[in-house]
């Protein structure tokens, strides 16, 4: 049976009825109309559904909606004009755009949590997403640019 839960998504509290078995991906898309997170495999393999969960990237297809109670969920719709979004446009880091939300959410969390991430860390994080259109070169350019600027920004002058 559906139960009422209160989720905090993109800073807004939302009271909705969900099934205990409903995934967060499903709830975001069907109940809240936030379709930026995409189903690509619903098996945790492709990362197209990546959202930020208390600031860390999480695959929303592997998360139950009820697990999100009392946590901060951020979806691509919650990012406004962030450096990584700008960098993706500037660097041509997407083509069809279907994997883009997931990649951006992953990159965004990385830049926020580990602005000094080294090459290995970047690889470690970004390998959890699949892009089938680009050859990853442009995505690398986008994340590198953002981290570089972030490092400059964060350096005390």
């Amino acid at each position, binding site marked *: 049976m559906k139960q009422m839960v209160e989720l905090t998504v993109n800073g807004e509290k939302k009271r909705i009825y969900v099934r205990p078995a409903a995934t967060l991906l499903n709830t975001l898309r069907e109940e809240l109309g936030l379709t930026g997170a995409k189903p690509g*495999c619903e098996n945790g393999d492709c990362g197209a559904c990546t959202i930020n969960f208390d600031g860390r990237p999480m695959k929303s297809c592997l998360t139950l909606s009820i697990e999100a109670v009392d946590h901060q969920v951020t979806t691509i719709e919650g990012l406004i004009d962030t450096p990584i979004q700008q960098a993706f446009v500037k660097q*041509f880091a997407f083509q069809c755009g279907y994997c883009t939300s997931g990649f951006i959410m992953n990159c965004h969390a990385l830049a926020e949590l580990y602005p000094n991430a080294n090459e290995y860390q970047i690889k470690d994080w970004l390998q959890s997403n699949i892009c089938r259109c680009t050859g990853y070169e442009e995505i690398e350019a986008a994340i590198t640019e953002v981290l570089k600027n972030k490092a400059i920004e964060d350096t005390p002058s």
Partner: protein
Amino acid sequence: MIGKSVPRKEGNNKVTGAAKYTNDFSVAGLLHAKLLTSPHAHATIKSIDVREAKKCPGVRAIVTGVDYPILTGSAIEDRPILALEKVRYFGEPIAVVVADTEYEAQNACTFIKVEYEILPVVNTVEEALEGKHPLVHEEFKNYTQVKELRPDPTRNVSNHVTVRKGNINEGRTLSDITVEIDVSFPQSDHAAMETRSVRAEILPSGEVYLHSSSQAPFTIKQSIGKYFNINENKVIVHTPLVGGAFGGKAAIQLELIAYAASKAVGGKLVTLTNTREDDMVSSPVHIGMSANVKLGATNQGELIMAEIKFLFDSGAYVDEASDITTTAALNCTGPYKINHVWCDSYCVYTNHPYSTSFRGYGHSELGFAIERAMEILANKLKIDPMELRIKNAIKPGDTTPSQAPLTKGNIGNTAKCLERVKELINWEEGQVVPISDRIIKAKGISSLWKTSMSPTNASTGAIITFNKDGTMNLNVGVVEMGQGTKTTLTQLLAESMKVDESKIHVKMEVDTQTSPRHWKTVASTATFMAGNAVLEAAEDAKRQLKNNAAYALRCKPEELEVGEARVYLKSNPKSNVNVKDVAHGYKYENGNAVGSLVIGHGSFMMNHLTKKDPQTGKGVPGPAWTVGAQAVEVEFDTKTFFYKITKAVTVLDVGKVINPKGARGQVTGAMCMGLSWASREGFTFDENGIVLNNQFRTYKTIRYNENPKYIVEFLETPQSDGPYGARGLGEHGVIGMPAALANSLSAAAGVPINQLPIVPESIWRQKRGGVYDINKF
């Protein structure tokens, strides 16, 4: 505007999650459909019992094959909408359940009881050709052929294409040296990130609305009309942004099932979206191939003859496979001048998922075969593989295997592409260079070519309208699936109208009711075809603007020019009028209005294409040949046989680069896809024809940082009839990658590697005969 890296027009929507794809839609009352698919590759369906399933909560209808005993197919009508009497591949749709929610539909699927009698499977093309019984299609003779095919039903052959150029006996006699190789690769998948999705609704007026993630919305219209006996003009198809396609979304499959599902619930709106697992095997896949190539040459390395046999694994149904069989045959030699060519290309049924178009459409497949043979020929002749290719590179004045004449206007410069690749990959350094006691650096090269086989009358159109502020709306029937054509077309229009691209609003969605009919968004033809239509529409709009402006400027239209959002006198540009003031007729100061509303329209149709001769293959299959050359550099571990792809090079003669960053992205993306396919992709079938890797957990694709460093350059030998000289480039980066990789690894490992995908284990098998020898480690 030409030559400028304009960011894609829909870019901001894609980085904010606002961009809508087919499945990003929900509304109260929307019904959900799910497929029940076959767990067997070949079996007779003895019975299907849906009684229990119908009692499941939320279920509104269940449709099975017997409800629609219709056979469908673009080349031959061999495929039921839902399996009828028997299943012919693992994953074949058997039933569709319509329910209030997706999970209820899914749940009900598990309550459908199907009784099967398992049949022996045809698991390889070789078995198929032996005529192994039972045949995949026992009733082949009763099928309707839509296209001209030459079948041999007793051997599971749906199409046998022959190319006969020159005299093969003479070729054999004139050859000082011949080489022969066998190559093969299994079927694989397009694996677009968006799985196929469709939504259908039938209104009381009889109108059928479909929303589909498709490359061919206008073909859907035709198919629904044809198979359900509905007047085609009642079928309206919408295609919003598509999340990648790569050829896999040009086939019509789920649309037919969704229509049947909607019909079963009184025409209500029903959505059907593939799971990843269904998308990989139930919907059509990338073709598999086995080939035998014999090349003959003089001792000096001049190619004399090619004798080629292709066996294409079409899987259980033909779909586009028969045309891929044809294209591969008609272009079988790759971009080399060879006077004596025999090719026998077979489209073969097996109990595998069925094959459809895939990026490259036969050319990457034929390329792998021919380029491996070229490498072996070079080794045997002791000629540098690069020199052998340059020496034999095809050029204007030569003819293709189908005897199509090549001219300066319809083919680029293959030799020049190779020369440039030679420099970029530092070929002079040597093909194999040891860099430590166990790591070897090795290079492999490949040429490539591709034409775009289309119906001889494939056509398209473009419509330009104006807003009150003088900005333009552009409407074409091309699908935006990531290739960026909508942005490219905007640039072409901006160039022609001499305005900034921001002054043009291009409609992303295709609506078959209002968008001009476009053949299909396939074969790297959208920029070529729709680009020409857009330029014609721009000329038409300018003519009308000048007519209206002539009233304002009191002159003849011929004295006027359009540019910078103005219409001005050629002799005195200071005398001008704003486009916005003449785009909707012209109004004099006293209120009198003259002229007319400007609506520019243009069209384009392929011309001079001919049907092929059934015996010799003679004919002109496509409008032009894009040529190029590629190289791969690997670091190969001689102990473990693991390798890293460090560098990949493409030099492509594209006629004219319209959007440099966009073009580079198309090429590097295609290179990545080609390398992914060659290095790790391919279905693994067990002895019962079951696909063991139909999800991303087990079907690996290249991920971040597994890609090589890309080096891409373009040559610009204009295509005479291309918009600003441009030719297609979307698919081509894939084509030479498998051969270049195999050539590099063959050189590194010192054994011929002729099967894909090339995983360390396959190199080990080839090198050590599959024997584990502890002393070798």
